[in-house]
């Protein structure tokens, strides 16, 4: 049987290849100048218009590399998480397909403010995983929306197993994050944000050591799926916690 098939995955993902010392070579100079200003401006709506509350930030590993996996509600998801991280936002890198990265209007937002890294593909997931692995090996953190698509009604969509491959093969902690209400603030058809309170919950990281042990004796694909499923379950738990928290907040404001 195909037990312990991880070796081939490691070869195909170039996991053991060295990472160039200057990677990731992003817009560092522009970052330093523009990013603080961008987040100062963003902080105004996130304080007053759609006020952001953050829970569980102490669950974030004390230093990168780690992976943040959040549900996908809107185009503001990454900003919401980055803003919650405060000064540590600079260690976090989202990945963006060339479709979005190459649009002229994306210049400021995606390249400079969001720190995004371009994926040279639309359909093939291997290049995206290889870049994410390089980011992690360079000692940075990766931001992922495992659903791939934005939700239209707040429900959690099925997760794609790429996040499971990334976490299980690199062994870095996988932090589940639930973003509450971002789909209401900036739905896919909205031009302007709407005034809903936003809640960001950081869950306890999934440690990869047991899964890495399992990779030695089980088909890799099954282990990746298991990691992905466990991550989804953890985010569902955070979703329930958010619903409870929202109810508590409403009750407090009525009393």
């Amino acid at each position, binding site marked *: *049987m*195909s037990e312990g*098939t991880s070796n081939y995955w490691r070869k*195909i993902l170039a996991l053991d290849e060295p990472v160039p010392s200057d990677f990731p070579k992003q817009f560092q100079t522009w970052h330093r100048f523009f990013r603080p200003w961008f987040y100062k401006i963003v902080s105004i709506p996130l304080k007053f218009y759609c006020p952001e509350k953050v829970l569980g930030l102490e669950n974030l590993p004390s230093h990168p590399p780690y992976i943040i996996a959040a549900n996908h509600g809107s185009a503001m998801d990454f900003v919401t998480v980055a803003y919650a991280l405060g000064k540590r936002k600079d260690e976090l890198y989202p990945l963006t397909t060339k479709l979005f990265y190459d649009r002229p209007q994306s210049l400021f937002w995606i390249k400079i403010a969001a720190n995004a890294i371009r994926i040279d593909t639309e359909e093939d997931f291997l290049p995206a995983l290889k870049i994410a692995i390089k980011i992690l090996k360079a000692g940075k953190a990766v931001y992922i929306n495992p659903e791939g698509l934005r939700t239209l009604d707040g429900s959690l969509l099925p997760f794609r*197993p790429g996040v499971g491959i990334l976490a299980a093969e690199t062994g870095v902690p996988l932090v589940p994050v639930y973003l509450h209400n971002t789909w209401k603030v900036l739905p896919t058809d909205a031009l302007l944000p709407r005034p809903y309170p936003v809640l960001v919950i950081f869950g306890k990281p999934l440690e990869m050591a047991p899964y890495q042990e399992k990779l030695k004796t089980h088909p890799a*694909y099954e282990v990746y799926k298991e990691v992905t499923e466990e991550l989804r379950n953890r985010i569902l738990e955070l979703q329930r916690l958010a619903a409870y928290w929202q109810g508590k907040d409403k009750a407090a404001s009525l009393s």
Partner: protein
Amino acid sequence: MTEDLEREIKSLVARVIKVPEEKIDPQANLFRDLGVDSLLGIEIFAALDKKYGITVPEDKLRGINTLNDIIALVKELKNS
């Protein structure tokens, strides 16, 4: 010998994709007709790597769609 190899590969593919052997038509498109996703596709090659010690290079992955394609590739790599 060749038939044995073909049978072995078919059985291995069936186990990986969890489809009974008799339901795999060697000409059928694994992705379109048997619901194999791209990750499971790579897992087939990972299982072949484990069993035969053959590493299918990334650029060859995209052209493989049927069981017959896999068999031809394994033969080619085993002979090279």
